């Protein structure tokens, strides 16, 4: 019996199926860190989804006695205006993760400010980064020089400048996240492109005289998506962090919908009396950011292992 035939036979038992999406997702569960992170993130996404249709009470009306500690009616207590903290906390998830209010305030689109901001920076950053990394030479120098200038802005200062110039609003925050995030994404995309473009399959594409855009987006990008995905998750974390900070500074997402940062801001004046209204949103931000970080860390490790 010929050995190659034997080896082939062995292979036949493997089904002729494309690697399913489920298989890709399942690698998350191979890492304990990623799983924990995903559970934390999923928790807040679910809470947000629920809050879209139901919150225990109206988050914006003062229905209760002020500064209650947690009890059977108000599980997390109430704030200085007698509003239910649980409802407000739940509602706070929305603007970050689930909906963006369009200018005018009438309509909103799905996907939170953090998500859209990161998508924006991903879009801009990937285009710039791939061009810089693949074309190199002058293109690279110019793009990098501009990005260097952008990166030189301390993020919060850039937000302040943008907000000072353009005023407040969901779109402004998205724009600010996009501008501040794009250089980082571009740098990452560039370094990935620089690495990937040395591979022989890029040479093979070039010997077919494929266009630069084809090579960048069909040959390079698919192989860069792992690290970009991981990076985006971290960026969503940073964005949430930032939105919180802006909210705290009172220049973030405009009222009336509560966001966690502004909840802290309002409550801190009463911190001597009641610490809970500060603690809950603070915990919410931390857990969500930690969750995203863990998820990203775990995913990165798994992807590296997977590629080996």
């Amino acid at each position, binding site marked *: 019996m010929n050995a190659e035939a034997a080896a082939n036979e062995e292979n036949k038992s493997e089904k002729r199926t494309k690697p399913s999406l489920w298989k890709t997702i399942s690698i998350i569960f191979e890492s304990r860190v990623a799983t924990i992170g995903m559970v934390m993130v999923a928790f807040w996404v679910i809470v947000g989804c629920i809050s879209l249709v139901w919150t225990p009470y109206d988050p914006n009306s003062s229905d209760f006695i002020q500064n209650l500690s947690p009890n059977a009616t108000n599980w997390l207590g109430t704030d200085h205006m007698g509003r239910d903290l649980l409802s407000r906390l739940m509602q706070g998830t929305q603007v970050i993760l689930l909906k963006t209010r369009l200018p005018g305030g009438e309509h909103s689109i799905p996907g939170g400010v953090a998500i859209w901001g990161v998508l924006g920076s991903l879009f801009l950053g990937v285009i710039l980064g791939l061009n810089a990394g693949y074309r190199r030479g002058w293109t690279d120098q110019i793009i990098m020089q501009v990005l260097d200038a952008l990166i030189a802005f301390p993020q919060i200062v850039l937000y302040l400048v943008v907000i000072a110039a353009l005023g407040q609003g969901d779109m402004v925050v998205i724009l600010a996240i996009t501008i501040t995030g794009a250089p980082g994404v571009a740098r990452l995309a560039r370094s990935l492109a620089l690495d990937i473009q040395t591979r022989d*399959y890029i*040479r093979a594409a*070039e010997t*077919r005289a494929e266009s630069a855009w084809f090579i960048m987006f069909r040959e390079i990008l*698919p192989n860069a998506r792992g690290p970009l995905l991981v990076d985006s998750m971290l960026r969503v974390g940073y964005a949430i962090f930032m939105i919180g900070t802006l909210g705290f500074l009172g220049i973030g997402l405009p009222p009336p919908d509560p966001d966690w940062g502004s909840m802290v801001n309002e409550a801190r004046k009463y911190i001597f009396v009641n610490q809970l209204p500060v603690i809950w949103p603070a915990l919410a931000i931390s857990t969500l950011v930690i969750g995203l970080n863990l998820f990203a860390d775990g995913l990165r490790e798994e992807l590296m292992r997977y590629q080996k």
Partner: protein
Amino acid sequence: MAEPTRRKSEDIPVLDIENLAVAYKVRGGEVEAIQNVTLDIKKGESHGIVGESGCGKSTCAWSIINFLGANGYVKRGTIKFQGKNLVGKKGEELRRLRGDQIAMVYQDPMQSLNHSMVLGEQLKEVLTVHQGMSNKAAEKDCIRMLEKVQMPDAANVMRRFPHQISGGQQQRVVIAMALLNNPALLLMDEPTTALDVTVEAAVLDLIADLRKEFNTAIMYITHDLGVVARVSTRVGVMYAGEMVERATVEELFKSPQHPYTQGLMRCVPKLGTDRSSSILYPIPGRVPPPGGRPAGCVFWPRCDYVRKRCREERPKLRSIAGTETWVRCHFSEDIDMGSWEPPEDLVLPGTVQKKEVDETILEVKGLKKYYRVRGNSLKDVFGMGEKQYVKAVEHASFKVPRGKTLGIVGESGCGKSTLVKTIIGLERATDGEARFLGFDITNSISARDRKLIQELQMVFQNPDSTMNPSYTVGQQIARPLKRFNVMPKEKITDEVLRLLRSMRLDEKYYDRLPRQLSGGEKQRVGIARALASHPDLVLCDEPVSALDVSVQAAIINLLLEIQEEFGTTLIFISHDLSVTRFFSEYVCVMYLGQIMELGPAEEIYAPPYHPYTEALLSAVPIPDPTAKQKRVRLQGVVPSAIAPPSGCRLNTRCPRREMLPDPDICLTDPPWREVHPGHHIYCHIPLDELRKIDPVVSIKEVNHAG
């Protein structure tokens, strides 16, 4: 020769490994990287260990100094060093052994030296830490040792950083570092694999000399049968974590006993053989991964002699009566290598000579490729410095007839890859002419006609990067078909499947992703992709150099077969002279951007040689310990391509320069001397003088294929 009786104590091997098994804990269990390794190395002996990648060679070495990482451990067996068991030793005791009694040299010297410490510091600490020597005394000893490893300008090297010396010199430093404490045992894990042939040859010479001087026992791990034949006194062959055969080097190459060893011998082309005189027989299948080794004999799925017993019972390593050979096979006495017949379903390339066609498909005349580089002075920063160029290819001229193969050989940095890139259009030629099918191809690829691009395709070196990891095999082969509109869309799938079949891959590979394929399979897909557009000329950039020998043979056969079937013309770049000789009708030898010698393959490999060709041939490791090679070595290091020596670029290192009455003539451009029509040598030395030189290599004809 009869020696006076040695004392019993002299027979105690320096290293004695018995039934060693090393396991790594992995998620969900553990895998045995090596199982059942037995070997012993005596004082002053050089014991080769040879095998394909993934056979556990390195693990074997690391286990000796118990450096197996957090998850590896010795599961069974003993490792005795100087009669003392090392297994289970740790901490301080082990540390005192490492670097003092047992030293190690491994593959990549650039990586293994600390790039932020000067070399002197790294050398000295071996002495100061182990012997408590003073800094000054250590410095003196280190310089002396550097001189012993023939390091030029030793005292200065002590103050340099690793990146300031060449790769070959780095490896010398690492070897010097290993020998400083006069270790009883030296473990060498592929120490020359990353080096060029001529550098490798010099390092191998050095190792042989040092072994004699220090009487050190050496364990030499390599995948290269040629190297092992040159350096070892005894050899162990490893396969899938087991030692399958051990013998003296002469015995092993004369009469290999294990079917695997025999298979290996049939896979490698010997220097001087070519496709018309011999055939390479690949070993079918692939090395099983540590987790998936078969029951019974580990080799049975790939063995041509497999019987029932082989599948059921694991053979023991047993001694063959009357010899020093040990083999792990039930039936080795019954197997006669001479009467081996290839299995019927193994498809081999035809060896029929093709009919002569005189059409030139590619003609290159005076081709130049310069790269602009920037200097480091302040002037250069502002673009005011003198313009500097790397002269990657200078005045390359050759012709390739249709249906033939041109092999281009040379060491790294000789410009062979640049030459090919310029031809295919990834780089634009600086000057000169290049015509392919009568069309000018000195322009870049984007300026070429699509029909022309289609006729000129390329096969790449590294199987791991030749395919885009994100797309399936089918998608990747289909892409050139779509791109060049070779056929209507609905027929593409059929064509891809046809191509796969002709690469001996069946249709289930269509939907596989590259990471599910082995190196050889990836390389086949790469070839299929290059062939999809039915090109007239395929450029192969070291297509087999990253592959294991058994797979390498299969790929070479495949390329030969394709050439036979489609009449494709091939340009074959390689640093391996044996493979090039085997594969090509014409050979072109390059050095530092210049073509040194050009001609029909059989003439290149026989006198008259260009001095550089001579040095290359003398350096090639030949998998035959009885082969005799003259020692012709190049001196010094490869000069920078930014300021190459004027005239003949070899003049700084030429081993034959003194044959000329006036060596200064080498500073002028040498003439092209025509040996025969089509065979040219670029050298000042007159042909008659060159003809007087004896052949570098003499091999006794032994044909394992029978």
